């Protein structure tokens, strides 16, 4: 009788009740993994909500009013991107981890073996939180200019607790500069990483799976992109168009995925030969389905490691550009603060050294975490 009833979810009822063939494999799959139906709907809804808010911000409010009136926060283009990246991250990293408790616990046990990496993860958590909410708590450096308080040394060098990390030439507290610098590093690291890793993964898997002319064309392009150094391209484009944080982030995101693409391609080539991919093809799975359901999940350990290790590269790159004076003049990058403190090196060394220490520790922490992740999730 089961076969005569209308299918509740369209089409799968045909063989229902006849044992093995009646199993809805999609549902079985979903029960084990992230469960797309509900999560994907929620994600799409949140992203649509953000898109609506973006349109509202640019069309209705335009430049006249801050986006979030209560706290006077006028959301910039880069901050919009950061919000989108955080939403994507919540649905594609945090949610699957929360659902697969057992696997998460296993990874955590592996990861915990590396003490330095655990400490680094804690430090990065603090940087993430302060970078995210800090600018809402502490005033922007330019609103904190106070010439009377210029060149206050930090508290450990004989300064007062009022400015625990000292002040710069214009009396701006170093701590405020560091907090706003954290936000910039957060934006550069996360947004560029998501762009670069997404493009690299898609290109790498596509090249490996389709092979032939697709592979040849994509990999030749990758060769070309690798020859043209991003740093030089950035300098040339900044020369031509002027500096903005959005341009720097976009260029790092769009032109530095070649390493990931190569890595994913070679990984996917090995995976493509394995039995489960052959089995999927034999049961009639389409190419796109095979790539999405079988290849990408199986190269994810490579991708996650590459993602973590690419963040410090982007952060350092942006800081170097800002140090050279090619950063966005409207944001307080750590590189810019360090550069500004150079002329005061003999009399006020803390202006350059303290933000530099934060930059160094952030990059170091990412490198520790990336290597520990590789050891934890990559069995080889």
């Amino acid at each position, binding site marked *: 009788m089961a076969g005569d009833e209308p299918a509740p979810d369209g089409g799968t009822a045909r063989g229902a009740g006849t044992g093995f063939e009646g199993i809805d494999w999609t549902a079985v799959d979903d029960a084990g993994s992230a469960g797309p139906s509900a999560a994907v709907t929620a994600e799409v809804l949140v992203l649509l909500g953000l898109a609506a808010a973006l349109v509202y911000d640019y069309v209705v409010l335009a430049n006249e009013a801050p986006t979030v009136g209560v706290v006077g926060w006028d959301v910039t283009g880069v901050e919009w991107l950061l919000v989108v990246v955080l939403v994507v991250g919540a649905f594609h990293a945090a949610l699957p981890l929360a659902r697969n408790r057992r696997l998460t616990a296993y990874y955590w046990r592996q990861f915990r073996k590396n003490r330095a990496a655990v400490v680094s993860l804690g430090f990065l958590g603090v940087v993430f939180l302060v970078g995210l909410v800090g600018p809402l708590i502490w005033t922007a450096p330019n609103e904190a200019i106070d010439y009377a308080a210029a060149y206050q040394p930090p508290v450990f060098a004989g300064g007062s607790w009022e400015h625990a990390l000292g002040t710069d030439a214009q009396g701006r507290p170093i701590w405020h500069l560091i907090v706003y610098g954290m936000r910039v590093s957060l934006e550069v690291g996360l947004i560029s990483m998501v762009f670069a890793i997404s493009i690299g993964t898609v290109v790498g898997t596509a090249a490996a799976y389709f092979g032939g002319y697709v592979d040849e064309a994509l990999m030749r392009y990758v060769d*070309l992109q690798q020859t043209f150094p991003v740093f030089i391209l950035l300098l040339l484009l900044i020369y031509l*168009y002027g500096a903005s944080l959005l341009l720097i982030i976009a260029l790092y995101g769009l032109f530095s995925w070649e390493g990931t693409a190569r890595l994913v391609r070679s990984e996917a080539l090995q995976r493509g030969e394995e039995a489960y991919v052959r089995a999927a093809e034999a049961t009639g799975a389409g190419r796109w389905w095979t790539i999405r359901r079988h290849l990408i999940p199986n190269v994810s350990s490579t991708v996650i490691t590459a993602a973590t290790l690419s963040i410090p590269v982007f952060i350092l790159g942006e*800081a170097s550009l800002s*140090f*050279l004076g090619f950063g966005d003049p409207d944001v307080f990058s750590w590189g810019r603060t360090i*550069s500004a403190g150079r002329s005061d090196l003999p009399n006020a060394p803390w202006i350059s050294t303290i933000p530099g220490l934060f930059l*160094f520790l952030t990059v*170091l922490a990412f490198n520790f975490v990336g290597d520990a992740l590789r050891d934890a999730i990559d069995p080889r």
Partner: protein
Amino acid sequence: MGMKWYVVRRVAWAVVATYLAVSLTFGLLMVTPNAGADVAAAQAAASGQDYDAVRERYLERRGLDRPVEEQYVDYMTNILTLDWGYSFSQGEPVLAAIGEAWVYSAQYFVPSILISALLGYGIGLYSALNRYTPTDYLGSFVAYFGISIPNFWFAIVLILLFGVVFRLLPTFYDSGVALLSVQNAKQLLLPVVVLSTASVAGQMRYSRAQAIEYARSAFVKTARAKGASEWRVLTRHILRVALVPLSTILIADVLAVLFAGSFIIETIFQIPGLGRLALEAIQQRDTPLVLATTLIPVFIAILGNLLQDLAYVALDPRIDYGDR
């Protein structure tokens, strides 16, 4: 497909890549407003002349009002015939300015590469053969330190320590010093240390990983079983096979350091090399010089990649030319 065919294809690809890179710079120039014209027009407008008229005259004089395809042919011909234009910010032809600057870049660059390659491979191989010893941990620490420290910040801290606090070394480069003198060596010490710290780390990590892979292989065990000394195993058996993939890192590293590092090192230590030349060109909106200082690294990168791939062919007999 044989080896010759592979080499021909590889060289042809390098030519195509060069052509595409030069075309890209032309395309970028075409779609953006001419910086030089804006500067000239703004100056003229300040002295009471008509902004648009001056701007047009500027473009006309340089042939920039002609059809795009004509300009393109011209541009490509000039690049090919090494007629790279005149740099107004330096007051001499672009190529002459570059000819004077590269000597200063090479002075700190060549020692850094040599030191970082020797130290990096040395420590990497040593810690691979002596894993989980204090020396290995020290090596890992140095590697993490090297890849994580922002080189501009490291340079500042070193200047602060050795130049300002202890007054042992000069804080900036003096181009008036003779090339082969103690003073020159002293003022090049900090730039070399900063540059090599960054690249030592990368080479150390890769050579350690490579050597660990080979240290467990059958041919190394065989060599040991036959009574070869540790030194012989290291130099004749492990290093020889490991050198092939390591040469890739060396080229990639050399180029990465050259491009990003030279700008920073030369700015901080005030060395009048290629990096400083490029920065001055950008700051003064000197388009011919900006182009030259952009294209030269790109050409070097293309050439470096070509030489590396050809070296692979010579070094590694296992390469399958049919594959790529």
